[in-house]
């Protein structure tokens, strides 16, 4: 459900360290050690933050390279931005309703057309 994604996204963003990590990743991939560097905290503490970001889908960690770089994932951020723009959100839902409406009248129309035959 979208709202659950959103809760996870906003919960993950509600922390200055995690936001700083995201800002760093916006500039490109980085290893866990590189990400930990600017912070005055232990590697396990940073790893914990990364796990929260990962669970929210905001970042992903590559399994390919030896140094397992982290990278930013755009989709949840985009969803969050959409949620915060009220008029856009209304439009998305309005267009959902338009689609529902057209589906209904089309199905009905097809049914009526069949009846006529």
């Amino acid at each position, binding site marked *: 459900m979208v709202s659950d994604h959103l809760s996870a996204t906003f919960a993950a963003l509600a922390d200055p360290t995690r936001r700083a990590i995201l800002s760093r990743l916006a500039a490109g991939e980085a290893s866990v050690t590189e990400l930990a560097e600017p912070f005055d905290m232990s590697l396990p503490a940073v790893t914990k933050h990364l796990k929260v970001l990962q669970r929210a889908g905001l970042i992903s960690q590559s399994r390919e390279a030896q140094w397992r770089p982290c990278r930013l994932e755009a989709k949840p951020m985009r969803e969050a931005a959409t949620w915060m*723009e*009220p*008029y*856009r*959100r*209304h*439009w*998305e*839902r*309005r*267009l*959902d*309703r*338009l*689609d*529902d*409406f*057209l589906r*209904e*009248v*089309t199905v*009905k*129309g*097809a049914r*009526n*057309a*069949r009846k006529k035959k």
Partner: protein
Amino acid sequence: MSSHARSIKHDSFVIQRILNYDVAVLFRAWTDREAKARWFNGPHDKWTEQLREMDVRVGGRERVIGKFADGSESRFEALYFDIVPDRRLVYTYDMYFQGKKISVSLASVEFVALGKDNEKGSKLIVTEQHAFLDGYEDSGNHERGTLGLLDNPGVALAGGDTRLAKPS
């Protein structure tokens, strides 16, 4: 008086959506009063339409007024500037909440037929440019449905309007 008094904030966005219908069917859904009333509305359990007027021609107006369960009123007032059947609509609109003007916007809607003879459905492109007045954009009223056109997912569409049906 709040610091938002007399403030103005600008914003714009584009939404694209591919819908599995001919442009003519979509254009009809946007320009027929009864059809538009079925999707351009408020949540059916919380919002009651009080007035809907529609005159889709250059210089023509559209008005939708509704009341929420708590008694608050929303008003949408549009003025059409450009109409090309099955292609595009350009209109401006003002939004009011409890009689107070909260935004002035320019909306452009493009209907693009996809595939040969429209067989792949249509792309709808909605571009909106807004001027939000007096701090509306962060007034915290969004969740109450300030816009009067709040979300209504899975709306149960009652009635028997089949005029928009695709010829089969």
